[in-house]
């Protein structure tokens, strides 16, 4: 196993895209920055709301802020020197290439299944050489052993593939963070696989 310094020196050269800065995106970003990833490109149009605090990496006093601004603030508290390119925008087929074509890996961190499908479809069609780490199924609590990783070529999907969020099955911090960190762990594997 390489030392943390060796790992960091490889990761510091890498750029990771994150589509969405909610429960998946904010937690995944924190783990990637803690691990030493050099640059993140994050896109989200939303604002922090008090209801987000049950799972997203934001603080009470950040309510009302743009998520990309609040996340920049929080990530810089962990790593003042990290490079962050934050985009206050809704991710669409029209701007995906512009946002993410320079990335070594992209993380799908949307809430809505249609948005997930749109990004997966577009990335696999237009940017097929960039690995995409997506997530599907993480609502509720328990059933941790059902969380898995499906791989098909350059596409990875983390989650249980069935637990959809609803009033009766809300997203909660533990399972959302577990899946966000499964995504972050796959990103590290992909970024480090040729180095050691």
């Amino acid at each position: 196993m390489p030392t943390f310094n060796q790992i960091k020196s490889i990761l510091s050269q890498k750029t990771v895209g994150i589509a969405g800065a909610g429960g998946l995106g904010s937690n995944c970003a924190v783990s990637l920055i803690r691990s030493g990833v050099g640059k993140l490109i994050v896109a989200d149009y939303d604002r922090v709301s008090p209801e987000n605090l049950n799972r997203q990496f934001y603080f009470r006093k950040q309510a009302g802020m743009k998520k990309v601004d609040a996340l920049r603030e929080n990530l810089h508290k962990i790593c003042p020197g990290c490079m962050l390119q934050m985009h206050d925008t809704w991710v669409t087929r029209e701007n995906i290439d512009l946002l993410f074509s320079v990335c070594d890996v992209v993380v799908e961190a949307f809430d809505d299944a249609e948005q997930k499908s749109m990004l997966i479809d577009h990335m696999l069609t237009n940017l097929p050489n960039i690995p995409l780490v997506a997530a599907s199924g993480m609502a509720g609590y328990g059933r941790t052993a059902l969380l898995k990783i499906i791989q098909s070529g350059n596409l990875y999907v983390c989650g249980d593939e069935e637990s959809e969020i609803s009033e009766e099955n809300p997203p909660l911090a533990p399972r959302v963070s577990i899946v966000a960190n499964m995504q972050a762990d796959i990103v590290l594997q992909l970024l480090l696989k040729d180095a050691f």
Partner: protein
Amino acid sequence: MKITLNNRPENFETDSLSISKIMEVKSFHFKMIVVRLNDTLIKREQYETTQVKDGDDLKIIHLVSGG
């Protein structure tokens, strides 16, 4: 034919089947899915016309909201 469906071996009586037919037989009724045949993306409009053959690796991945 013998194929791999979502990482499990599956046997079908016929020599080939369309992706739509396999979804019907195996009761995949999800609204949002990603279909990969031998690691190639198959778009929704190709489900009827794409034939799965012996030895193929088919993945039907279910996308649900949450994140």
